[in-house]
């Protein structure tokens, strides 16, 4: 085994060395350009793709080098078990992968954590997302190894292991916030182990399904079913995009004078703009329906305030946010110092030039360690800041921050039984503060200009947009919740608009119905989807939507569709198994698999076997499979080759006699 490990190391070094050099160069550039970019979304995207490509190339080449039939025979015809060959190959592959990926990254991490290098907060937990990307590379490594081993059969089943790895990477890139959880990173080892088991089985039998140990068969079938599902999903999404072009997009817009309009954009047709009563908006100059370009000049952009009352306060609003924002946010730049909000509720300053730590700032910063949870600054609103932020809040108070004097001043204190969930400086001297009991606008000295009662239980987590209207001291509030998406599906109310004035308080309220109701065509594609993917899909769909904080109910009509499809596939599998005279136990195992995996399971069933030919039995004339010793119908042996009188046979016994 040692000889094969050494051979593999040497053989694949020529791939690993350039990877090492490129990654080192990239990290050196990142260090020079940005200092500490650990957990940065851009870095994670680049490194995750880099690890994946390296892992996949390594896995593919380790098998591909020996792809010529005779070279493979040269390798396997030596006194070592196939399991030994498997371990030798993956030990060498993973060693190369780990060493040549880790060395530059470890060097970079060590560099960053020394004072004067990173120029931004550092903690060891920032390494965790990169560890997740590292594990993703291992998943790709095994997927490519399996692909390289697999025989090319119909419908390109060879690529299915790679297709199986794709969604894991896509999930990690779409929801990079997941990577900060070591549990998620560790869970990625499960598909890696599954793929490794399938690789082991394939090396044992030269990629033939027959003859593999049961765990390897199960792993291979699972991987291929998952890969088939991915391909089917992508195909349906592609077809739906091709044939089912959504006719329109619909949304609400608020004008500078606070009116709400419903906008429908339908392909290249002029947009339909209506007020809440359904009347078309007319252009006052022409008297005709207003064009979207003209209307957009009247629209006022709102300022978003994400609100959350989680205890302890959430540091990441949702999993689609970059992991770096879990650890810290860039808050302000004053007098050559970059101030960061950190997840420990502090402002931390770093000198722009020396990249060294300068100071910490908080309401009550202890001499050492981190402030108590109640004294921690809440995560500031990051997205869409139109002005320099001026204030930060804890769960109980709002503070004005004076970075030049490095001091804080409490300007508002919440009631004893109240709790602050989000704030935003909407102008140089006004801050919107959202607490459990109210939404209010505070002046620079903490005086409340207006106050609206707030019922967070009704719509938590709340998402509020504030529109500063043209009329003096008038505002419109858009109170929304991602969870309303689910209520929309159930036909319930949508979002709420509240118009307030500093003089008169609440002027009026309105409930806005769903802007974009579901259409029958969507349901058709949903059914199609359910028929061709595993029957678990309708149960998994709500879980997937949870990542985006959307609550989607289980759709039982889709469950029924999935079950019908799975039952049909199980029946088809049973019939095909009977046609080829599979033992009942094998047929039962496949039927169970088809019930779990549905249509993709049937594709796997058809692709893994090398289906034997069938020819007529000379005895009973019925078709029989050629891989059995006797005819399954009449028990007759296969006919010996026809003789023509030219045969010369002398048995060994005859010779010896």
């Amino acid at each position, binding site marked *: 085994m040692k000889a094969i490990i050494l051979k593999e190391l040497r053989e694949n070094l020529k791939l690993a060395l350039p990877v090492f050099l490129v990654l080192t160069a990239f990290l050196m550039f990142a260090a020079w350009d940005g200092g500490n970019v650990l957990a940065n979304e851009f870095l994670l995207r680049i490194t995750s793709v880099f690890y994946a490509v390296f892992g996949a190339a390594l896995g593919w080449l380790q098998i591909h080098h020996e792809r010529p039939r005779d070279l493979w025979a*040269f390798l396997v015809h030596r006194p070592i078990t196939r399991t030994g060959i498997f371990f030798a190959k993956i030990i060498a592959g993973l060693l190369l992968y780990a060493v040549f990926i880790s060395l530059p990254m470890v060097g970079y991490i060590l560099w960053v954590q020394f004072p004067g290098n990173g120029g931004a907060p550092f903690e060891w937990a920032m390494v965790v997302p990169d560890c997740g990307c590292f594990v993703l590379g291992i998943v790709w490594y095994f997927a490519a190894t399996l692909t390289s081993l697999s025989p090319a059969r119909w419908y390109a089943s060879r690529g299915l292991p790679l297709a199986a790895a794709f969604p894991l990477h896509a999930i990690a890139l779409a929801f990079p916030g997941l990577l900060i959880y070591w549990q998620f990173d560790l869970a990625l080892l499960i598909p890696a182990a599954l793929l490794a088991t399938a690789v082991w089985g394939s090396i044992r039998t030269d990629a033939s399904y027959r003859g593999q140990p049961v765990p390897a068969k199960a792993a291979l079938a699972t991987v291929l079913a998952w890969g088939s599902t991915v391909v089917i999903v992508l195909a349906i999404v592609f077809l739906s995009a091709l044939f089912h072009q959504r006719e329109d997009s619909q949304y609400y817009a608020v004008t500078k004078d606070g009116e709400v309009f419903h906008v429908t954009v339908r392909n290249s047709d002029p947009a339909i703009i209506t007020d809440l009563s359904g009347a078309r908006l007319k252009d006052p100059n022409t008297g005709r329906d207003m064009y979207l370009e003209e209307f957009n000049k009247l629209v006022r952009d709102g300022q978003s305030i994400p609100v959350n009352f989680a205890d302890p306060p959430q540091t990441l609003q949702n999993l689609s946010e970059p992991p770096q924002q879990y650890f810290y946010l860039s808050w302000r730049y004053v007098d050559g110092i970059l101030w960061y909000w950190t997840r420990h509720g502090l402002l931390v300053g770093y000198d722009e030039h020396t990249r060294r730590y300068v100071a910490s700032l908080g309401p009550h910063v202890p001499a050492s360690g981190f402030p108590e949870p109640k004294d921690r600054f809440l995560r500031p609103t990051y997205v869409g800041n139109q002005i320099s932020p001026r204030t930060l809040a804890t769960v109980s108070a709002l503070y004005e921050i004076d970075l030049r004097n490095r001091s804080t001043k409490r300007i508002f204190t919440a009631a004893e039984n109240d709790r602050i969930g989000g704030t935003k400086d909407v102008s140089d001297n006004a801050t919107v503060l959202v607490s459990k009991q109210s939404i209010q606008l505070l002046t620079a000295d903490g005086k409340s200009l207006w106050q609206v009662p707030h019922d967070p239980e009704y719509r938590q987590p709340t998402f509020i947009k504030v529109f500063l209207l043209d009329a003096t001291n008038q505002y419109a509030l858009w109170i929304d919740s991602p969870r309303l998406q689910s209520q929309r599906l159930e036909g319930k109310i949508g979002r709420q608009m509240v118009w307030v004035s500093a003089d008169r308080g609440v002027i009026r309220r309105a409930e806005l119905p769903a802007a974009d109701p579901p259409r029958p065509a969507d349901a058709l594609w949903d059914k199609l989807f359910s028929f061709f993917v595993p029957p678990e899909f309708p149960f998994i769909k709500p879980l997937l939507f949870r990542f985006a904080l959307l609550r989607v109910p289980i759709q039982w009509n889709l469950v029924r569709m999935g079950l019908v499809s799975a039952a049909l596939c199980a029946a088809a599998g049973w019939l095909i198994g009977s046609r080829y005279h599979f033992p009942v136990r094998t047929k039962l195992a496949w039927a169970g698999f088809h019930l779990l995996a549905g249509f993709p399971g049937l594709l796997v069933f058809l692709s893994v076997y090398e289906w034997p030919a069938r020819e007529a039995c000379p005895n009973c004339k019925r078709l029989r499979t050629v891989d059995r010793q006797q005819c399954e119908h009449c028990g007759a042996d296969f006919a010996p080759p026809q003789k023509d009188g030219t045969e010369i046979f002398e048995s*060994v016994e005859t010779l010896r006699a």
Partner: protein
Amino acid sequence: MSDQLAIRTRGLTRYFGAKPAVYELNLEVPRGSVFALVGRNGSGKSTTIRMLLGLLQPTRGEATILDYDIRDLPPEARTRIGYLTEEHQLYSWMSVRECSQFQARFFSRWNERILQGVIDHFGLKPAARVKDLSRGERAGLALALTLAPDPELLVLDDPALGLDPVARRSLVESMIYLTRRSDRTIFFSTHQLADMERVADYVAVLDQSVLRACCPLDAFREKVRQVRLSFAAKPPPLPAIPGLLKAFRTERDLRVICVHYNDATEQALRALSPLTLELSPINLEDALISYLDEPGEKSFILAETETNP
């Protein structure tokens, strides 16, 4: 009985799709023999060898090699079996020395003397890279690596394939002088009938996936006969003759090659009323080619239109 056999197959069959590559092969290879498997391209020689070495699963049938079931060959079986692949493929980036060191790590019974003998015979430099070797040199290195573990059974898949006559001769000489040992079995497939004749004790002929002959080489020579018949005029049509392999017709002659020549065959030929009937010797190559060629009659008489324009 089985301990006297190095290889034994029973109904060994392999299909690729609906086409059988090897059909119902029953073969017995005595220990200590040099056994040649001959046949045309696609007749199933390599498939047979790959099945015997557990590199390809048979569709049905069974076989043993050194008494091990081919469906599950343990590592110790591979220690005892040397295998030279058809293309002599080795790791191209390795040098001759590295190849030898790599191979030696797997075998406890590594015979450096044999290795050096073959390497010297082919004039290989230890530092030369495999990718820089000629085809003949690579074949020599592959043979050296196969022989050095001192295997009981040597399986060679068309070892002279693609080699020029000199390299081929070198390889055959190596096989003769270095591999021959009373207790060693050599099982090899080949296209080179002349080489085979110099080395083999036994021959098996595969024709279109089916075994048509399996016997000692001398028996094969004995069973295949050539008869020359001369006629006063154009030879008459040939009747059904048992064991007929081939017939060649010229203006006044008929040459017939057949197996199991006996009195009945002679009577059938004499019924044609030839002027002379003469049994003439046939070399092994001609005999095998007759065996492997399409059966039937070939004429060397030019067509009427060509002879009388």
